[in-house]
């Protein structure tokens, strides 16, 4: 990767253009009244087509994607994004469909929704799905709206609380707050699982439900899930499943069979659609038949959700089919455990259990701290990985550990790739022990070195 310093505005020159439009053959419409017109044209760049192409190509080369290299970003399931998915999503009959066209004109699209609904319901053990949510957090919010609607429709007005484990994704409590629910945190035990005794003490008629990730964000299966489901249902609450960690469960366990009533899937995680630099995603929400009665009462996005993403996910499901579904889940778990076993002597492993698709280290065993030189942190390890051509794992999450380093390899990485990563992680551990400054100053060969983030927040420059 090489540093490229231009912004599109700096390529602009009066008199250049990058478009061609048909000759206007219409009589001129009346001018807008002066008080409705903007005073001056917007200062948009004036650039030719080849300059635009080269500029964005240059920008792309300062970026790291799954197609560039290994991207073990925990909880994000950065699996390979199949190219056939892109091909089918661009078909003209789909791309040209207006969202307000009635169903008799959009039978192909309707069939995709119907087939996807069937497939996802089967994979998860849910009754039905809505595809309106555009991302995982949007799905959480939608699911919680459905949870509240379920209680309200039963005349059960007093359920104002939602229980969220301390290990939960930040979106869980945030979605609950947006949905007007009070967040009650339940602690994790030493072994990383929900403290069921503590949970019992929180359960009463004021609880709308609980939000859980299973496996949780430590990559650990909540072994008491059936008991938890019984307890929550026992006080009239519902169970929400955050599907961010669904990948290892494919072909083995279904949220519906664990007792969950509502859930979302991240199609951009489990179902291989590209993350797009932070979207577009898709967060379809599955639910039981009872909960589905509330669906007509909510509308959470403009039209039918991110149809283009749903098309890609459907192509993935057709490729994987019933024959390979289980392999996806199992191989993701195999790879994660293999990495964990190969590195646990040099990185602190707080919980030694068999993990699912991901696991969490708590910093280095030997961080190299000596005299006045502070030891290498998780941030330092992450930055050093960039030098070796890897994306860093998720860092400082979950919040249960101070030096969390969360690794999720996914099933689409070969053993050779994983072994090379392990070798580099061991090398970095060695470097840390000998010369932590080398890590403090990393990255050394990325397009930029560590930027001053404090200055960015203190004196925000947010536009050109």
């Amino acid at each position, binding site marked *: 990767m090489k540093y490229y310093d231009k912004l599109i505005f700096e390529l602009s020159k009066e008199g250049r253009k*990058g478009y061609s439009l048909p000759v206007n053959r219409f009589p001129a419409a009346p001018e807008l009244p002066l008080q409705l017109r903007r005073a001056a044209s917007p200062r948009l760049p004036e650039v030719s087509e080849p300059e635009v192409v080269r500029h964005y190509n240059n920008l792309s080369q300062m970026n790291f994607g799954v197609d560039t290299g290994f991207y073990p970003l925990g909880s994000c399931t950065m699996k390979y994004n199949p190219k056939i998915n892109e091909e089918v999503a661009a078909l003209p009959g789909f791309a040209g469909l207006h969202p307000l066209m009635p169903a008799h004109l959009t039978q192909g699209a309707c069939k995709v929704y119907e087939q996807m609904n069937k497939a996802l319901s089967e994979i998860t053990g849910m009754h039905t799905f809505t595809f309106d949510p555009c991302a995982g957090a949007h799905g959480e919010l939608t699911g919680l709206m459905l949870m509240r609607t379920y209680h309200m429709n039963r005349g059960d007005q007093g359920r104002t609380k939602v229980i969220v484990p301390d290990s939960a994704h930040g979106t869980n409590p945030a979605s609950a707050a947006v949905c007007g629910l009070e967040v009650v945190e339940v602690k994790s035990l030493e072994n990383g699982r929900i403290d069921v005794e503590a949970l019992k003490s929180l359960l009463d008629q004021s609880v709308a439900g609980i939000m859980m990730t299973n496996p949780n964000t430590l990559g650990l299966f909540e072994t008491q899930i059936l008991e938890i489901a019984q307890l929550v249902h026992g006080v009239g609450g519902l169970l929400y499943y955050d599907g961010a960690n669904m990948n290892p469960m494919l072909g083995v366990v279904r949220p519906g069979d664990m007792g969950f009533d509502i859930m979302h899937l991240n199609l951009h995680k489990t179902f291989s659609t590209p993350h797009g*630099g932070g979207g577009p995603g898709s967060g379809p929400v599955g639910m039981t038949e009872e909960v589905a009665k509330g669906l007509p009462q909510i509308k959470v996005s403009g039209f039918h959700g991110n149809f283009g993403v749903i098309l890609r996910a459907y192509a993935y499901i057709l490729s994987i089919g019933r024959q390979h579904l289980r392999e996806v889940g199992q191989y993701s778990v*195999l790879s994660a455990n293999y990495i964990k076993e190969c590195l646990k002597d040099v990185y602190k492993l707080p919980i030694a259990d068999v993990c699912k698709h991901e696991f969490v280290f708590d910093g280095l065993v030997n961080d190299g701290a000596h005299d006045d030189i502070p030891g290498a942190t998780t941030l330092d390890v992450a930055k050093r990985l960039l030098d070796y051509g890897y994306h860093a794992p998720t860092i400082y999450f979950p919040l249960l550990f101070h030096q969390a380093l969360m690794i999720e390899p996914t099933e689409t990485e070969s053993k050779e790739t994983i072994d090379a990563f392990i070798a580099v992680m061991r090398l970095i551990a060695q470097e840390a022990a000998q010369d932590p400054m080398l890590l403090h100053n990393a990255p050394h060969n990325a397009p930029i070195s560590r930027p001053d983030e404090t200055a960015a927040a203190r004196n925000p*420059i947010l536009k050109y």
Partner: protein
Amino acid sequence: MPHPYLPHTQADIQAMLEKIGVKTLDDLYADVPQACRKKGAYALPDAMSEQEIRDCFAALDAMNARLKVFVGQGAYDHYTPSVIPYLTQRSEFITAYTPYQCEISQGTLRYIFEYQSLICELTGLDVANASMYDGPTAAAEAVMMCTECVRKRNRVLLSATLLPHVLQVIQTYAKFHGVDITVVPAQDGQSSLGAIRAELSKEDVAGVVVPSLNRYGIVEDLTGFADTIHTAKALLVQYCDPSALAVVKTPGEWGADIAVGDGQPLGLPLCYGGPYVGFMAVKKDYMRKMPGRIVGQTADKEGRRAFVLTLQAREQHIKREKATSNICSNESLMALWVIIYLSLMGPEGLAEVNRISADGAHYLHDELLKTGKFQEVFPGKPFLKEFVLKPLEEAIALQHRLEAAGFFAALPTPEGYVSFCVTEKRSKEEIDQLVAAVKEG
């Protein structure tokens, strides 16, 4: 048989299991209670080869009607330069995630910074975020933001002239978030300052949402709105078509505090409603109350210009339930789509898009009136690419008649009108054919 996306061989699997110290893949799930495991096979389709997938989608694709689109109502059939899909398909853009590791994400961070800059330029406001899911959800976030910015006030007014789906999404969010909503009736096809003033007098209103171009296609005259609303200590939120902002008075010029809308008219394909991209821009005072990611400029250790995610203390991964929003993934790639579109079109191109669309729409409007099959609803009201008429025949029958002739046009509205839209993609010949089809009925 191995699958092309799954590289592990049987030998790899054996070696890895040995290292882990278990015998089989199933052993890795030993902690999962038998009672909740899936019994029996999954009822899913058989795995398809790539050619079979291609054939399957070609068949699905062929089941969709291919009509000339003469409807807008929040989704506009504007032209997409071929450069955009080409560039947005670059692996380094599309297969990256949120730019958490800024040193190897400068491509994403730079285009978001460019995007924020141009959203500010179009809206005339100070600060824009990195994107929202779509226009309606951006509007819903703006409504919740109003109640955060204006203390102890919990009611927001929505103009009845907002697009129907925008009203519905805001109402859904507001119901659960606990914001009281009042839909203020329109007057003569536009937001009513008188009706808004009457509501403001109750001194409980945190914000007022009005459209720039409304559900009838009318360009709203907001003279006096900002003063009235600000005097009542509430915020003015404007819902805008960003393409039209190249020519119409901007939220900044009207005195709005927050501008939101959908970026779809900036060259995004219709794609049955998504992915689109919501945008939000605000006055500087409200920067720290904004939802979503924000990219800022700074320098690296060598003093080189660098870009980072900033003001993150607002966000869910830091603040959890106290965050300004729950949004995490947004529509980054569609923001790239928008910035490339705006770069190619430039000020002259965007003005030209508006001119051709408005000229075509007025031509269609006048030709339709000449058929004698419609009444004007809002005579003399200024519009650009979209307008409504009252059909003398049953609206739905007219729509179906035009479908049969190859047009998606004359969309019936809840008021009993039909809505038309013309973009620069519609030729004069197509419009003449549409008018001929109207006459034939």
